[in-house]
């Protein structure tokens, strides 16, 4: 009498085990897929932080010329290993190890009008005489969205050093391309148009003697 019961019991046991297995499998799948619980959805998370105003400064900058340049900067690996990796056949397999970034930068040039004194304006009849301060480089800008990492690896500090070199070169290239002359010419032209509209028949704009470019200050940023 008890013999036919055994296969039924074992079948029931197997069914229960199968059900438990399926339940565990379903729980596992839900654990992996469920949003928020799964670790795979946690990737790289950037926290929201506040932008804090530290200083507000009144300025009077007439920017009258701009210079744009795209350049490729290479920081060579000058170690023995770096030299070895530059051999064509080896380079093909290991890469050169040089750090290369492509960046685009902007230079703004013009006049700092806050340097003007009351005596720089003189009116006699229909004639206005204005003496402008020397033209200068106002900004050299390479922001994080302006450069692209192309190859190689460097630390953050090393990367900063390379971008600073790029800024120096950008500034030198802008001056060489004539950004200061362009700023002088277009600044004078736009002020002449404005002052003529204010009713002056003759507008004399005198340019101060150009001073050597400052390496630091706001222009150095």
């Amino acid at each position, binding site marked *: 009498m008890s013999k036919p019961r055994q296969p039924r019991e074992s079948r029931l046991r197997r069914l229960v085990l199968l059900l438990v297995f399926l339940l565990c499998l379903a729980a596992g799948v839900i654990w992996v897929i469920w949003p928020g619980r799964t670790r795979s959805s946690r990737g790289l*998370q950037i926290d929201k932080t506040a932008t804090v105003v530290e200083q507000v400064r009144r*300025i009077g900058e007439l920017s009258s010329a701009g210079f744009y340049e795209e350049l490729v900067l290479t920081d060579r690996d000058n170690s023995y290993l770096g030299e070895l990796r530059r051999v064509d056949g080896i380079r093909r397999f290991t890469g050169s190890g*040089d750090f290369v970034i492509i960046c685009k930068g902007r230079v703004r040039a013009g006049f700092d009008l806050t340097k003007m004194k009351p005596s720089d304006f003189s009116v006699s009849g229909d004639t206005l005489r204005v003496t402008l301060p020397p033209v200068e480089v106002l900004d050299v800008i*390479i922001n994080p969205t302006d450069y692209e990492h192309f190859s190689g690896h460097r630390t953050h500090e090393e990367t900063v050093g390379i971008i600073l070199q790029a800024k120096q070169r950008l500034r030198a290239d802008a001056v060489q391309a*004539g950004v200061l002359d362009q700023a002088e010419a277009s600044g004078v032209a*736009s002020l002449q148009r404005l002052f003529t509209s204010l009713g002056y028949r003759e507008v004399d704009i005198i340019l101060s003697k150009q001073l050597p470019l400052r390496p630091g200050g706001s222009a150095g940023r």
Partner: protein
Amino acid sequence: MSRFRSAPRSVIRRLDRRISLLVAVALLAACSRGPSLQDLLASRIQALSQTSELGTVEYTVRKAVRARDEGEWFKIGNRRILFTCTAYLKAGIHLDRIPLDRIVVDEESRSVAMVLPHATVLTINIPPEEIRLEYEDVTGFRQKFSDRERQALLRQGERDIVRDLPTLGILDEAEANAEEFFRSMLEQMGFENIQIVFE
């Protein structure tokens, strides 16, 4: 026995041919040259342009860029990084957008009325030397943040600063300063009644 010995010989012969073919391909690959770094350096673009912008205010803002990476479920360890950066924002007006035909001057009463364009943000400058890596923590079997990842985080920080611009009040400040700048300049020129409107 002889069959047993001849099988490896044929395999070695076949392998010999394949190895010599591979060596030939490798030698050919080594001889051909890709674009050199000097070629890449030559590909520069330059452009000089004329602008007419009057910057009237500069905001110095500080931003922390904070990120954590707990990784995929199969990765052991976490990564955390913190940057701080300073950004200089300049705002002002475009002088070439001043409607010169709408400047009204009355010489007798020494009065002038002019319309100025609304202020805009002229530049956002995040100097690289003012981006500081304050903290980096890598645990378990995780790798350090790569150059590309660090740059992506800083780019996001810059985008966040741009996103926060409307809440900073920089444009109102720029317009107030522009009005004061023009008022003071027109007073120097001898005008007594000055009307400035932003449109």
